[in-house]
């Protein structure tokens, strides 16, 4: 009879795995540190510098010999109180309202149009690649260029007025300026949402729809009960990106309509105008306030609606056993 050899003895349980975890962690830290350093420099430094700048102010006064007094003084939170008081305060709250209004309305319209586009693109059509590429063209055009294009369209003697047979002065203050900005923004970014949602749609297996059809579900019921829930993660990520982008909207109102028009002025425009007049302290204050607003909205979005920006991968990796942190070696019996 053949001898059955004893299985090789397993090494002592505690020593080797622990050391290799330490090494792995150090290696990971070492490999990541250049990236973290670069990010700290490119993202962290401007934020901290901006906050620091917002606590200082340069003098605008002219001394008796006719020259501007130099040097900056530490003014603490004075720049912020100046933002909220008096005429500047009214202007700020108007800009705040405009920013929020544009974000909510534009994103809502974009989602509707984008999802519709995605549903259409998902049907097996010939020339799918070409259609997808051409739908992305508006997104590929830089926003400033598209703002110039739309400014020509919305010119008093432009195509828009010719088509609807009215003489609307689009770039004057009022609801028409808002409408112009919303149209231009939706045209540019609905394809972006469409493309992200299309990616989400393509992951849904066909069998689910077939099963639903067998069960007698109408197209609308299929959409509501199958498509929407399954496409939700992709849609939420797309919506989050669009919200963050629209909160910072600057080029469309500035180039399409022009500065100084209260109906489309956003917080970014206020920061830019202050900057142009070399009032860097107040400009930084506006920028920091916008930053806080964006952070708040993003946080609320992720927490409340569960937009999984990092990805569901986290749920799939096996949870570390009690008492250990981070990686552990795959042991026999782990689920893949």
């Amino acid at each position: 009879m053949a001898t059955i050899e004893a299985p090789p003895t397993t090494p002592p349980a505690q020593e080797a795995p622990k050391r290799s975890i330490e090494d792995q962690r150090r290696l990971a830290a070492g490999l990541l540190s250049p990236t973290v350093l670069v990010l700290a420099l490119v993202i962290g430094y401007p934020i901290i510098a901006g906050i620091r700048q917002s606590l200082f102010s340069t003098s605008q006064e002219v001394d008796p010999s006719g020259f501007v007094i130099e040097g900056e003084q530490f003014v603490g939170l004075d720049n912020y109180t100046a933002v909220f008081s008096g005429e500047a305060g009214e202007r700020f709250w108007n800009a705040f309202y405009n920013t929020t209004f544009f974000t909510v309305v534009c994103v809502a319209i974009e989602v509707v149009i984008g999802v519709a586009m995605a549903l259409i693109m998902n049907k097996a059509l010939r020339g799918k690649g070409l259609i997808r590429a051409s739908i992305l063209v508006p997104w590929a055009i830089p926003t400033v260029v598209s703002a110039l294009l739309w400014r020509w369209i919305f010119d008093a003697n432009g195509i828009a007025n010719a088509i609807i047979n009215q003489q609307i002065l689009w770039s004057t203050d009022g609801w028409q300026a808002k409408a112009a900005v919303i149209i231009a923004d939706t045209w540019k970014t609905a394809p972006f949402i469409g493309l992200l949602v299309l990616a989400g749609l393509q992951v849904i297996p066909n069998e689910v729809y077939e099963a639903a059809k067998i069960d007698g579900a109408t197209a609308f019921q299929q959409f509501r009960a199958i498509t929407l829930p399954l496409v939700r993660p992709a849609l939420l990520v797309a919506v989050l990106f669009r919200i963050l982008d629209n909160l910072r909207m600057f080029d469309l109102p500035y180039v399409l309509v022009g500065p100084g028009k209260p109906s489309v002025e956003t917080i970014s425009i206020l920061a830019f105008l202050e900057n142009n007049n070399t009032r860097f302290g107040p400009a930084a204050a506006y920028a920091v306030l916008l930053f806080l607003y964006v952070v708040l909205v993003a946080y609320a979005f992720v927490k409340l609606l569960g937009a999984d920006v990092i990805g569901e991968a986290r749920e799939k990796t096996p949870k570390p056993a009690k008492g250990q942190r981070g990686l552990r070696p795959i042991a026999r019996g782990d689920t893949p």
Partner: protein
Amino acid sequence: MRHNRLAFVAVAASVGLIATACGGDDGGGEEAGGGGGETGAPALEGTGPITYVQGKDTSGFVQGVLDAWNAEHPDEEVTLIELPESADQQRAQMIQNAETESDAYSVISVDNVWTAEFAANRYIVELPEEEFPVDEMLPPVIDSARYLDKLYAVPTASDGGMLYYRTDLLEAAGIAEPPGTWQEMIDQCEQINATPEGQGVPCYAGQFEKYEGLTVNASEAINSAGGVVTDDEGKPNVNTPEAAEGLNFLVNGFTEGYIPAEAITYKEEEGRRAFMEGRLIFHRQWPYQYALANATDGSSPVAGKFDVAPLPGLDGPGASSLGGHAAAISTYAPNKASALEFIKFLTSKEQNQANFELASQTPIYTSIYDDPALIEKYPFLPILKESILNAVPRPKVVRYGDATLAIQEAAYGALTGEMTTEEALEQLQTKLEELTQ
């Protein structure tokens, strides 16, 4: 394990904070406080390569000028640095260069409304007035380059507003002379609209969109009625009956209809298109439109059918706004002596005449306007000279950026009917007083 991560975060944070602390300060405190500026022009020293900074060269002739200098001065070579076309962006870049104390810009082409601001902020240095032939230059032009009676820049080109008018439409209505006052212009329009050729053609337009051009047009209207925005000492005095009459000329234009409604969106180019397509009888515009509207290559339907006249005012000729650019030396330029010599070359009479003939740049030397040979070639020269001699510079305010926004707010509000002329001027007076304290 835990301290690895903590150590990590600590290192990253301290890198960020150290970088911030290092980068943060302005060099502001280095000069001895603010008081007691230099008395007399400081010595301009240093020879070597320099740079010339201006907005985009749309006519393409500047490099030729620089090459001429470079041929004669191989050790002091000048390089051209072009900035964006928009005046606001040029100003922003020049300010940025000065705030970072960069030596990249030597000679900068300053719009004449920025002279006061740049001089007060010490972005440009005082120039020795005795070394330039200032007596041969048109007085309003050289005056706009001074701050507190000291010369800070030397004009390279001027600009003044003129009234373009359709000679064929005036002829068809039997009108011999272009209008000299606003009322004459309105009456002439009525006559022209009664003729078959002139029926339905809008009467008058300028630049009324909410941007710098509106400041120009509003100031012109106020000055042409005998009012002022700021007086000679720079103190605002705009809440006067004369100023109200001036602004009302524009406001009534929209309400009574002699200015078309869409003119509220006009900048220079929109107005030029309207005039060249025959949609305007009278148009207030800069000299650059002359060559373009007279083009015989078929791009201009009004070629040969228009002429220019001085701007009309309330009781007589009006006052145009003074545009133009001047060359100044940046405070942080290393080779200021070379820069000074270069400015002398750039603003010489021969160069000025060449600029005019090659690129239609409005000359600054009086004798160029009086040259009979040139007048024959360019018949609008005498009108342009009159326009500039009577021109009023825009408000000389150190905080010009804010001042122009205040003027635009008031004028646009009045033109769109959001506020009455009186309210607009009152608001403007208050704002300007705040800015010029």
